[in-house]
């Protein structure tokens, strides 16, 4: 295994050596530089740099950087991007040319690009498929629930993204469970993306630049989760002057400050959100008045520029949720209590050193830390306790990117993650009858190395090929149980236990993860793309509830819990009208999942020291078709998308007790075959815009009772198989209006109002279906509608 790292590493760095002596014709020179916004100095990603004479073009990459190679001569460059005034720049190429281009924002430009900040024809031209970027500007146009602009919720409008229900944490991407998405906030993984059970996401919209969802043809740079990557990038701090932005909403208040601490050297961005007092619980029914529910979060970014070559960036996030529930107790800890307090927090940080070696080489090294902790406690003296669970992710990684002038863009890198998981530790209060309990901590390393090349073969064909190798190593202290052969794994069938000392490696698993994306252009503005990726996942969120709770348990792979491995093939067709005003795309995918996780009946995972006795693994299968039609220009913009997708699991083991539904294939909790989304934005002037959003999806699967028995005087439902029926279909219309200040009259203090209506026609969508037998009722069942009414909200935002 070790040899393989060396090979991979060398393979990654080899081009470095060969490129040191450029071998291209002496008459060719590099034209390179950055494209920036004139006012904000923010880099413009995906701007088109077009050489009018040679009809040669390229899009600016991350940080607005571009490289072109061209023979000696005089040319005119046309630099353009939607939303900025295109610029014509004459150049004389007779030496290596460094060129920084500043574009002016086009205030009269009313065309709204909703989904993407990329060049208008990027969807046809780029290699990757299954990638969608939502800029914060477009996210803010989507009608927000209770006025809270929400990044994770916005993703639900994209094809292939679903949720088990309104208010559930996380998203399901192309048939993946919620823990199969790596959610990154400037490279730091976020273990719980929701505040207040998932109603609102942890990403503060005031500081986010864009969110990119990779769901097919995932590049080798990313790894660690089986389904998708959500890459949320924070804005760069304002470099010129100090600015304050904020807002007042129904749920939370926001405030952010940014500016230069040391001119041209050190910039800072700091933002916070604080929820209103207890969500109006004190005004609620008497039984809820003692309920407490609050959250706050703090996001910061610091950037220090040493010189043109070195920069240091720090991103920090701290978020906390607090709940207190009267007169109840934890179901997982069997004690009697009068109230229970839940407290969960995320702390995450990334320190990134970017070394711009020269025009060709850029080295980015980052130290990443993320910690998610949940504390539940009961105050009653005789039964007092604190239950603490903790997940820690510590990572060092380094990525080297190499731009060559021969149509190759090479990237290679290494990553080392150190995981620490404390599943649950129960500490009794003084004098309490509760026994202390500490579940065994889990520790492991995840090592990964990758190399990737994006090769523009010719104007028609480009290939992005990558290879990633990941290795997972469980580290002691630990005890590994052996179960009696041929019998079901239960705590009673343990035949021996082997203990390992601190630092001892007791389990290793790993393998290659090939990635491939091919684009073939069929003409000026249409292309077909093919993608394949294999992903391995070594950390799992194990919960047998339909939606995860903040207290749900994280579990590392170990000798019993094998890593989840997906293989996905996708094929797409992309076409634009010549002016890029209208885009059409269609993608099909087929995905298999090895070691999909499900649970035994009545699994109890929270305080289980032998989780392998409750977990089952099997096969998963997902396939689908995603189609999208989008209009990017004009007063009316928007898109419609339709997705057909299915997700099935098969848990079939030799022992009858370790099968689900008798070993036959059954739909996953998040299998929702038909999804339709439509989003329209009308923007007749710069001061006003209006958005409409309609969504429809098939109801999620549920387990319906097939018979009833009368036991102890009550009717007890009898269930046969899991997930055989469905709740009614879901549909909803949202609306929002946005009033802004006249940009023609610039003022120091700017403000805007957003009025939004969620669920305009008040459809009573089923959140769940349940059964209550009542001889006087006409029906046997009931549906609970959570957002069963119209939800208006008003938000005020300001900036000065």
């Amino acid at each position, binding site marked *: 295994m070790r040899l393989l790292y060396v090979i991979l590493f060398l393979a990654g760095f080899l081009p470095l050596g060969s490129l040191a002596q450029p071998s291209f014709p002496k008459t060719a020179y590099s034209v390179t530089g950055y494209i920036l916004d004139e006012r904000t100095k923010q880099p413009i990603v995906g701007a088109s740099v077009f050489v009018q004479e040679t009809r040669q073009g390229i899009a600016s990459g991350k940080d607005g950087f571009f490289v072109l190679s061209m023979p000696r001569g005089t040319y005119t460059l046309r630099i353009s991007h939607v939303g900025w005034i295109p610029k014509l720049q004459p150049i004389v190429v007779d030496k290596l040319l460094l060129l920084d281009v500043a574009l002016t924002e086009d205030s009269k430009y009313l065309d709204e690009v909703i989904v993407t900040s990329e060049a208008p024809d990027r969807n046809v031209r780029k290699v990757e498929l299954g990638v969608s970027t939502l800029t914060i500007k477009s996210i803010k146009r989507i009608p927000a629930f209770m006025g809270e602009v929400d990044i994770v919720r916005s993703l639900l409008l994209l094809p292939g993204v679903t949720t088990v229900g309104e*208010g559930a944490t996380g998203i399901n991407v192309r048939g993946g469970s919620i823990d199969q998405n790596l959610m990154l906030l400037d490279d730091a993984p976020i273990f719980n993306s929701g505040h*207040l059970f998932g109603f609102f996401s942890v990403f503060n919209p005031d500081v986010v630049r864009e969110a990119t969802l990779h769901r097919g043809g995932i590049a080798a740079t990313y790894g660690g989760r089986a389904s998708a990557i959500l890459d949320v990038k924070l804005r760069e701090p304002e470099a010129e002057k100090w600015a304050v932005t904020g807002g007042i909403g129904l749920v939370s208040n926001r405030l952010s400050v940014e500016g230069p601490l040391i001119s041209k050297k050190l910039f800072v961005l700091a933002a916070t959100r604080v929820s209103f007092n207890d*969500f*109006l619980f004190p005004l*609620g029914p*008497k039984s809820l008045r003692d309920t407490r*529910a609050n959250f706050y979060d703090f996001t910061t970014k610091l950037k220090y520029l040493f010189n043109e070559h070195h920069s240091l960036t720090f991103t920090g996030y701290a978020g906390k949720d607090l*709940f207190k529930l009267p007169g109840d107790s*934890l*179901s997982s800890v*069997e004690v*009697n209590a009068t109230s*229970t307090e*839940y407290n969960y927090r995320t702390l995450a940080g990334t320190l990134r050193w970017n070394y711009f070696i020269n025009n060709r080489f850029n080295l980015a090294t980052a130290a990443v830390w993320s910690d998610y902790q949940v504390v539940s406690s009961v105050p009653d003296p005789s039964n007092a306790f604190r239950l603490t669970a903790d997940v820690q992710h510590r990572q060092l990684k380094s990525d080297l990117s190499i731009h060559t002038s021969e149509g190759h863009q090479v990237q290679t890198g290494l990553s080392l993650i150190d995981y620490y998981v404390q599943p649950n530790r*129960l500490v009794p209060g003084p004098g309490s009858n*509760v*026994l202390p*309990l500490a579940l065994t901590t889990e520790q492991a390393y995840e090592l990964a190395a990758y190399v990737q090349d994006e090769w523009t073969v010719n104007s028609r064909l480009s290939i992005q090929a990558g290879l990633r190798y990941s290795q997972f190593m469980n580290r002691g202290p630990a005890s590994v149980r052996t179960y009696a052969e041929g019998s079901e794994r239960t705590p009673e069938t343990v035949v021996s236990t082997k203990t390992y000392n601190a630092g001892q490696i007791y389990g290793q698993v790993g393998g290659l993860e090939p990635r491939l994306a091919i684009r073939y252009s069929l003409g000026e503005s249409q292309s077909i793309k093919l993608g394949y990726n294999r992903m391995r996942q070594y950390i799992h969120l194990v919960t*047998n*509830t*339909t*939606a995860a*709770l903040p*207290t749900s348990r994280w579990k590392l792979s170990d000798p019993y819990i094998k890593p989840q491995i997906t293989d996905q093939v996708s094929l797409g067709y992309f076409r634009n009208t010549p002016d890029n005003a209208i885009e059409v795309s269609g993608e099909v995918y087929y995905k298999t999942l090895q070691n999909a996780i499900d*649970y035994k*009946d*009545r*699994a109890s995972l929270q305080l289980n020291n032998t989780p392998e006795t409750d977990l089952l693994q099997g096969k998963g299968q997902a396939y689908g078709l995603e189609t999208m039609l989008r209009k990017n220009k004009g007063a009316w913009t928007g898109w419609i998308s339709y997705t057909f997708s299915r997700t099935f699991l098969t848990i079939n083991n030799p022992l009858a007790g370790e099968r689900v539904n008798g070993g036959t294939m059954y739909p996953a909790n998040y299998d929702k075959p038909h999804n339709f989304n439509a989003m329209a934005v009308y923007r007749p002037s710069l001061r006003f815009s209006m958005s409409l959003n309609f969504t429809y999806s098939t109801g999620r699967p549920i*387990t*319906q*009772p*097939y*018979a*009833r*028995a*009368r*036991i*102890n*005087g009550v009717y*007890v*439902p*009898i*269930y046969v198989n899991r*997930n055989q*029926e469905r709740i009614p279909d879901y549909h909803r219309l949202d609306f929002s209006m946005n009033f802004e200040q006249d940009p023609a009259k610039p003022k120091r203090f700017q403000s805007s109002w957003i009025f939004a209506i969620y669920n305009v026609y008040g459809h009573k969508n*089923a*959140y*769940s279906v*349940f*059964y209550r037998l*009542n*001889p006087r009722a006409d*029906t*046997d*069942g*009931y549906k*609970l*509608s959570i957002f*069963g*009414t119209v939800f208006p909200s008003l938000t005020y935002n300001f900036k000065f």
Partner: protein
Amino acid sequence: MSSLSRLSIYTLVLLLGSCITEYQPDIKSLPRSLVVEGVITDQPGPYTIQLTQTTDYTNAGINLRATNATVTIADNAGTTETLTEISPGSGVYRTKATGIRGIAGRKYTLTVVTSDKKRYQSDAELLTAAPAISKLYYEYRADPTALTNENVQGWDVYLDTKDPETTGDFYRWEWTHYEPVSVCQVTEIPNAAPVGRYCCTNCWDITRCNNCINIKSDAAINGNTLSRQLITRVPFSSRNSYYIEVQQQRLSAGGYAFWQSVKGLTQNNGGLFDAAPSTVRGNMRCVSDAGTSVYGFFGASGISETYLYVDRSNGVGAPTIIPAVMVPQPSACVVCADNTTRTPNTPRWWKQ
């Protein structure tokens, strides 16, 4: 459903004007299966076994009784007794008052041969003695949020018991309240006070919580005191003392799993934060045909019992008024019935 999930539902309900509407799902059908209910204890018998059948999960479904079956309880020491159906068609089978008696340490098996000649048998259940109830006590608590007026003021009855050192002990609690009554027959008269007739003898109304499943495992407190186990809340319906008997049953691991499943299934709302529901079949199986389903549980429980008088004189204000009954004089007395809701027999620890 965990409390967190309940909180989330509250949050949703409160924040979001949620609502519940009627909904008719497609009806599913399964063939009728036998359902067995019954327990043998280390207290004197008779013991009863109830046999019913499953039906569709609809309002219209009827759980038929399983009648004319041969029901036998046997222990591992060679004692057997065949139960008799208390009345034809009742589906309730009873041992003789002088018949089999549960003894701690023995294992018990139930055998049922139904009228269609199918033979069902339970696992052998070990009867384990229950630890004594170390303390039964009550605390006055005003609860302005209570749904019924009677419960705004009340006395919470708690139980403490010393859990044995062994792990894997499981408990279930049941209570019985006896309320002395003098009027044994009441006739409602429209627009006037009801008219009643006195009981000929002493008489008590019996109150139980038939569908309460109050169970606990010792997992969190093994070997320590299981404290402040809530048994029930005594309503402020009178200033008189309230007499309550509390029974502590020791369950087997299988029995606990079964009752926990029954409890969970009756509370599961199919919501996002509920686990996929599944049915515990219990400890019965069909030995003549492995493909035939059978549900229910035959238990063998050790029992400890005690009683409590709850003094309700410290209630604030007037108790919930029970309408007065007119008894014309003279009038013939009425015999106090002896059934599950009324008894002429003096309760075990009754003091007067």
